[in-house]
């Protein structure tokens, strides 16, 4: 070996080190790069301070009336959000019963948090969810245990958004796995059925599905049979999400090397053992990023139920914006609601990254 001292004493050139080196390499590496850097800095300077000024420094946090707020503020009027937060969060749910949807939100968040922990990934989890969802139903509807009955026409806001997306994902995901497996099945009838379903549903916008579910479906049903609007919207969301998720899952199934299927076959595993023990665990792990991407999409798409008059989070915000006593605060309202959406989506995204890291088992062959 050559003398180690000769190489260890060599220092990297000064300019490739420290923040100066970093900046030179990443921000000013060439004329185009430099131009883009300058443009970006200019854009940031033009927008960020102004926004901070408006949203924080000159904002008014509480005011008795809209006009007071308007006059006092050179910036945002968060008093509006404070004034209307219960309408935004819970929609038209009876005011004095708001603790019920509040509790529902807490239950949902707790259950989602719980489900994210690997410690709870046992068959018991399904039971916990059944209990939790029963509790959600009881709290929202009432009519038992001394709770007053609240028809679901009056449900709204965050609980409704959570109900639509959690049920949507919880039912669509298993359905999508069956669809994806069916699409790769050797049995022509099953395969054709799955292909037709996926292509048909994926080919239309969710809005038109919701519209069909709420307006056209009743036309085909015999008079007297009338299942409720929320359920119809929920079913439309499940069917739609399943078609999308099925293609994501299929991508994972196809990415698995053929050898995995063959090894499982050669060991004598049955189709369902092979699928459940070997194929799906690997295929689903491969597609965690696009799966979560689709989950996030579904979560936000639930806001489209506005088209059939359900008061999800976004729509109950709209309802609060039209209050003549507090006119013209849509910027504040939308920012507040966006923050809720963002918090939940960001959590999903971060969680998926953590999950991927947890499930990694050494380098791939």
């Amino acid at each position: 070996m050559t003398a180690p001292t000769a190489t260890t004493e060599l220092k990297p050139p000064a300019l490739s080190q420290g923040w100066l080196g970093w900046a030179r390499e990443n921000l000013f590496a060439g004329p185009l790069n430099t131009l883009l850097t300058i443009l970006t800095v200019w854009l940031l300077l033009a927008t960020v301070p102004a926004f901070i000024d408006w949203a924080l420094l000159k904002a008014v946090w509480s005011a008795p009336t809209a006009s007071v707020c308007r006059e006092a503020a050179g910036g945002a009027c968060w008093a509006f959000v404070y004034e209307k937060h219960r309408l935004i969060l819970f929609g038209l749910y009876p005011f004095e019963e708001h603790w019920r949807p509040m509790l529902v939100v807490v239950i949902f968040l707790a259950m989602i948090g719980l489900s994210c922990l690997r410690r709870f990934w046992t068959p018991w989890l399904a039971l916990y969810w059944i209990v939790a969802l029963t509790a959600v139903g009881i709290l929202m509807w009432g009519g038992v245990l001394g709770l007053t009955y609240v028809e679901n026409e009056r449900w709204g806001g965050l609980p409704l958004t959570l109900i639509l997306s959690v049920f949507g994902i919880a039912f669509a995901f298993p359905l999508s796995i069956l669809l994806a497996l069916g699409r790769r099945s050797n049995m022509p009838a099953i395969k054709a059925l799955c292909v037709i379903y996926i292509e048909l549903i994926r080919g239309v916008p969710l809005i038109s599905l919701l519209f069909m579910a709420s307006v056209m479906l009743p036309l085909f049903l015999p008079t007297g049979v009338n299942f409720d609007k929320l359920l119809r919207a929920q079913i439309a969301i499940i069917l739609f999400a399943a078609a999308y998720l099925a293609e994501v899952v299929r991508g994972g199934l196809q990415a698995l090397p053929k050898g995995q299927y063959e090894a499982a076959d050669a060991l004598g595993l049955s189709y369902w053992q092979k699928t459940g023990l070997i194929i799906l665990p690997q295929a689903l792990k491969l597609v965690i990023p696009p799966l979560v991407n689709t989950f996030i999409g579904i979560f936000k798409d639930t806001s489209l139920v506005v088209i059939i008059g359900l008061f999800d989070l976004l729509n109950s915000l709209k309802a609060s914006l039209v209050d003549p006593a507090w006119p013209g605060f849509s910027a504040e309202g939308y920012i507040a609601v966006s923050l809720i959406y963002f918090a939940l989506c960001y959590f999903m995204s971060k969680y998926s990254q953590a999950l991927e890291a947890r499930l990694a088992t050494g380098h791939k062959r």
Partner: protein
Amino acid sequence: MASDGAGPVIQMRNVNKWYGQFHVLKNINLQVSKGERIVICGPSGSGKSTMIRCLNRLEEHQAGDIAVDGIQLTNDLKNIEKIRREVGMVFQHFNLFPHLTVLENLTLAPIWVRKVPKAEAEASAMTYLERVRIPEQANKYPGQLSGGQQQRVAIARSLCMNPKIMLFDEPTSALDPEMVKEVLDVMISLAETGMTMLCVTHEMGFARQVANRVIFMDYGEIIEQNKPEEFFRNPQNDRTKLFLSQILH
């Protein structure tokens, strides 16, 4: 069952297979009796893999009969699953399950297919890991092992099902040269236990040492078969001679 007597454990009669118009297997007739160790060689694309993969229905033959351990190989799923329980297979690329630890790879099929209790399956898995000389890797994932170690795990995984027959499809050809020996050693010691083995391999030293019979295939046909000494010393067919001259230099 039927194989307890002296009858063949593998019986292929006039087996034919086509991929579309391409005739991969042409009138294959092969009988293997219990405890026999057979090496199959031949040029690339000659149908070696296809032939042994027909034995556990990874590939379907279109004409002729195959019986394994006295069970007719038909489209009957029950029969196929029965045969697969008795036939172990080792692949060129190991095909270990990367999401399971070595121990889980070994115990999966005994637990789910043979319904062996978990503790018992783990104990027997450990004895097989000792036989392939890597018990210390039990709790690692396949991705953390070298190629030779992975292939030894794959052999152990098949053995855990207590198969009557082992099929090997070029088990050493994806390995770096220095790892070939460790895998061959395991296969040799397996041969010493009296296991019925069919190996597709170009390791002629292995063939000389353990095979009872060497089979040469070309263009989907069995061209020649003989005891190893005879096969190497005195090949009959010109194609065999050409092939041997190429691989033995």
